[in-house]
C-alpha cells in the first residue's frame, strides 16, 4: 500500500515538473521575437517536458500492475525526429533571410542551404 502511494506521489511530481517545463517552453515561444530564438523553446519542451510526462505515465502503469513500455518508444521517436524538424525550420529561416545572416564557414565555400544548384555542374557529393 505504501509502495503504491510513493509511486503515485512520484508520478504527481513528474507531472508537475513536466508541465512546468512545457509552460516555460510556451512562454519562450510567445516572448522571443526572432524565428531563430523561438526555435529554442520547442527543443526544451520536446526533451524534459514530454520526458517527465511520459515518466509519470510509466509510473502510474507500474502502480496499476500492468507495466507499459510504449512511453520509451515515444521518447525514442521524439529524440530522433525533433532535431530533423528543427533543422528544417532553421534552413527555411536562413533561406528566407528572416534572421541575422550566418557567418561563412571557414573550411568550405558556403552553407549547403545557400548553395544554388547551377553554381556547379558536376554533382560530386562529399
Amino acid at each position: 500500500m505504501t509502495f503504491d502511494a510513493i509511486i503515485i506521489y512520484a508520478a504527481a511530481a513528474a507531472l508537475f515538473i513536466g508541465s512546468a517545463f512545457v509552460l516555460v517552453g510556451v512562454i519562450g515561444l510567445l516572448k522571443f521575437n526572432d524565428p531563430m530564438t523561438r526555435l529554442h523553446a520547442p527543443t526544451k519542451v520536446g526533451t524534459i517536458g514530454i520526458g517527465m510526462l511520459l515518466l509519470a505515465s510509466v509510473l502510474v502503469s507500474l502502480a496499476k500492475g500492468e507495466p507499459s513500455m510504449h512511453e520509451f518508444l515515444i521518447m525514442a521517436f521524439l529524440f530522433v525526429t525533433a532535431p530533423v524538424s528543427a533543422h528544417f525550420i532553421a534552413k527555411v529561416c536562413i533561406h528566407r533571410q528572416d534572421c541575422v545572416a550566418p557567418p561563412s564557414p571557414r573550411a568550405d565555400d558556403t552553407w549547403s542551404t545557400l548553395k544554388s544548384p547551377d553554381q556547379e555542374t558536376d554533382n560530386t557529393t562529399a
Partner: protein
Amino acid sequence: MARAFRWLIPHPLLTLILAVVWILLQNQVSAGMVVFGIILGVLIPWGTSIWWPGTPQGVRIGKMLTYSVIVLWDIVVANIQVAWIVLTVPNAKLRPAWIVVPLTLKQPEAITMLAGTITLTPGTVSADLSDEGHSLLVHVLHTDNPDAVRDEINERYQRRLLEIFT
C-alpha cells in the same frame, strides 16, 4: 556462410533495433511476438537495402552508452539553464549568436549524431552543414562568449563521437 549471412542480414544492428521496437510496440514479451519481430527485422532491411548502400563500421557500443548518459545529463542541466534564461532575460538583453563548429568527423552517421545532440541540448540548435561537410552551423540562444560554446561542443561531444566511430 558469411556471404549468405551478409546477403540475408545486410544491417545486423537495424535488424536488432526493428525487432526490439516491434516487441516494445506489443507491450508484452511472448515467444510468438519475438519470432515475428525477428522476421520483420530480417524482411524490412532486406527489402530496403537498396537505399542503404553502406553500413556504419566500427561502432563502439560501450562508449555509446557513456555518451548517452552524458547527453541525458546535459539535457537536464541545459534545460534548467534555458528555462532560467527564458524567464529572467528580457528580449533586449538577449544575445543570440551563430557559431561555426569545424568538423573533424567524417562519417554521415557521426555528423548526424552530433547535429542531433546539439539540437536536443537546449540553448543550441544545429542549423546547417557547409557544402563540403567540413563545418556545422549552430545557433546559440544566449551567450557572452561564442568561442567557449564552440570549444565545449568540440571537447564534450565531438571528441567522444570520434572515439565511438573509429
